[in-house]
């Protein structure tokens, strides 16, 4: 607790920060596009962390340690964002000035909504299935397939600068993401009851 307080006290008095103005793509020296060389991304991530990670500053001044935690956190955030297709897609759009407003965002496509409702129902009924785990696997596969389709949709729309279509694709992917989280939670609960 003391250390925590001390660190905070120092942070309050020292307001100098690292330069975070680069985009994540610039940071990793990669072109701003949806297609990405994940191996290169991983390698550059490791190189950057090798420079800034707090372990490199364990014996350094308080100021350097504080900056290193900031810098390493920023690099981690950048890496997480670019590593996953959904967050990468969303980030690309925010770089183009597209807004994502949680309150107003709904996917407007009725066919899509129907699909969501169906999948949700299937998920709820999993408990009553004779083999719940394989039922979950099926739904999981369906979600994965749809995600891949949406990624392709996004890639096409983004390349053609059709930002609203691209945005819709991202919103739909977000829906599936949430559904996938629920599926995971369900899987965990099922496993616990089996134990």
């Amino acid at each position, binding site marked *: *607790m003391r250390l*925590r307080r001390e660190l905070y006290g120092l942070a309050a008095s*020292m307001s100098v920060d690292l330069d975070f103005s680069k985009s994540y793509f610039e940071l990793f020296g990669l072109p701003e596009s949806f297609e990405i060389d994940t191996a290169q991304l991983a390698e550059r991530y490791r190189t950057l962390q090798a420079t800034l*990670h707090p372990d490199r*500053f*364990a014996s350094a001044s308080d100021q*350097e340690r504080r900056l290193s935690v900031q*810098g390493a956190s920023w690099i981690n955030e950048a890496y*997480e964002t670019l590593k996953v297709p959904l967050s990468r897609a969303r980030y690309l759009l925010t770089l183009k000035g597209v807004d994502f407003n949680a309150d107003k965002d709904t996917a407007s496509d009725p066919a899509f909504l129907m699909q969501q409702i169906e999948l949700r129902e299937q998920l709820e009924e999993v408990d009553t299935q004779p083999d719940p785990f394989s039922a979950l696997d099926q739904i999981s596969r369906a979600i994965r397939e749809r995600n891949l389709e949406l990624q392709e949709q996004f890639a096409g729309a983004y390349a053609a600068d059709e930002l609203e279509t691209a945005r819709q694709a991202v919103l739909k992917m977000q829906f599936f993401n949430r559904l996938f989280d629920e599926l995971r939670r369900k899987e965990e609960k099922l496993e616990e009851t089996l134990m």
Partner: protein
Amino acid sequence: MALLQISEPGMSTKPHEHRLAAGIDLGTTNSLVATVRSGSPVTLTDEEGRYLLPSVVRYLSDGGAVVGFEARQAAAEDPLNTIASIKRLMGRGREDVKTLAGRLPYHFVDTEAKVPRIHTAAGDLTAMQISADILRVLKQRAEESLGGDLTGVVITVPAYFDDAQRQATKDAATLAGLNVFRLLNEPTAAAVAYGLDQGGEGIIAVYDLGGGTFDISLLRLNKGVFEVLSTGGDSALGGDDFDHAVAEWMIEQLGITDTSDPKLMRRILNAAHEAKLALTDHEETMVSVELENGVSRELIISRSQMNELIDPLISKTIMACRRALRDAGVATEDVLDVVMVGGSTRVPRVRERIGEFFGKPPLVDIDPDQVVAIGAAIQADILAGNKPDEEMLLLDVIPLSLGIETMGGLVEKIIPRNTTIPVARAQEFTTFKDGQTAMSIHVIQGEREVVDECRSLARFALRDIPPLVAGAARIRVTFQVDADGLLNVEAREETTGASASVEVKPSYGLTDSEIEHMLKDSMAHARDDMQARALREQQVEAERVIEAIEAALRTDGAELLNEQEMAHIESARDALRQARQGDDMEAIKQAIKAVEVASEEYVARRMNKSVQSMMAGHKVEEFE
């Protein structure tokens, strides 16, 4: 310091003295200290050549404490003053004690304090203080063995330890007079110890079953970079529970109905522990227990009987393994090797079932008792700055999701579990009353959606919010988890740019003033040369700061600073040099701070430049 080396590899600076560092495994049952000597990591032993230090402390009525084997021997005859498995109580609150207390035959002081205290002959003590007593012995062992003061240590904690448990560990170290470079997760430490031997690339699973905690971690090793993919476990499940399962069976077999005598319970527990150890090498064993009336009874227990008793516990660990695999997005087939850590992995049934689960026999080459301390020693050596060219990098993760309480007792996750640390996430809040100047945020750790099913971490009170119309304030709260896995919170009101002050009220920890009080107390009882030592430490620190700033200025001072800025830094350095000659500890401390403040802009420029040149290096490669 590492930064200097990267900027100017050819540049010679004053050669660093080898800094004394050590790795400490503060275990539930046993603790160890290790160090790197002549390039090799070794565990350090006591005068009788034993590297284990039983995590048992016996308190005497004269206020003294005995730690280790001697204390453990006294456990049966003095159970209320001989504290074992204190790790189970670190970072735990009053409520937790009620669930755990049944297992631990100690006398808990019934007060209103959040942090439980155990009543002993030497006073009412917190888990943190008791752990500090163990750490002090290890510190002394290291310093005697190495012939000097320790610059710092790496202390390991179960990967699954939450913020309160980690903070308690760090506080214990502070109380024991140790400078902690890093809190390192035990499975990662084990991977470090193994990784360097194997030199391989791939995914490894570390199955760590200690006395009181279980951890499963999945790591990817790639060219010296250890990247934790996921971690899971149970901070209240370990070999001790195997003992308890066997002990309960024994109580039943012996027909004992009165379990109120702590000495008898301790004797039965000891017998169960002995039986467990014996059954590692034998199919059957006999134990003898002295009952209340002085009569001894014998019991025969077979390995298959014990297996039946411990199977449910092993199943719990397998469930955690499944979850960790899922979190990492890998299947058992993808795992290259399974590493066993912790004395309890010697139990044949454990090796059998885990081997079965992962589809391959687990690795047990390195002594499971020493492997964690060895890994910690390796990292301590690097963090002390003894190996500036070392490529090894540990990228660990936060084990539990961090969230905040929202309306209706729900949890909103801010940082999900298995996020690589350090990490910072920001969340915006606003006021709901006109002129509101304060706000409280309740931070939780856990995976559930309801606050009551998660673990409360702390309440952060934000004050000095500029009074605005309700809903107009935009308070940006940044949750920062550092490389030790500890949370820091900062708050700023965006429209005015004012920083809100943050007061931390930990749910299960001690307040700053309580800790300071303890520190002062421990200083008062110490010998006079504690004072001299504190002064010496400041002088050494002053020298390091001077050396570092001078080396930095030589490297790129002219490039990054104008004359005025350079003069400003140099004058602060001169003032520090002056202060260092004297013996006013406070003056030296202030002078060090002054140098840091004077050079803060410069330091930031150097780090930015470092990042730039890293990227520039890559751009050049692309054109080749």
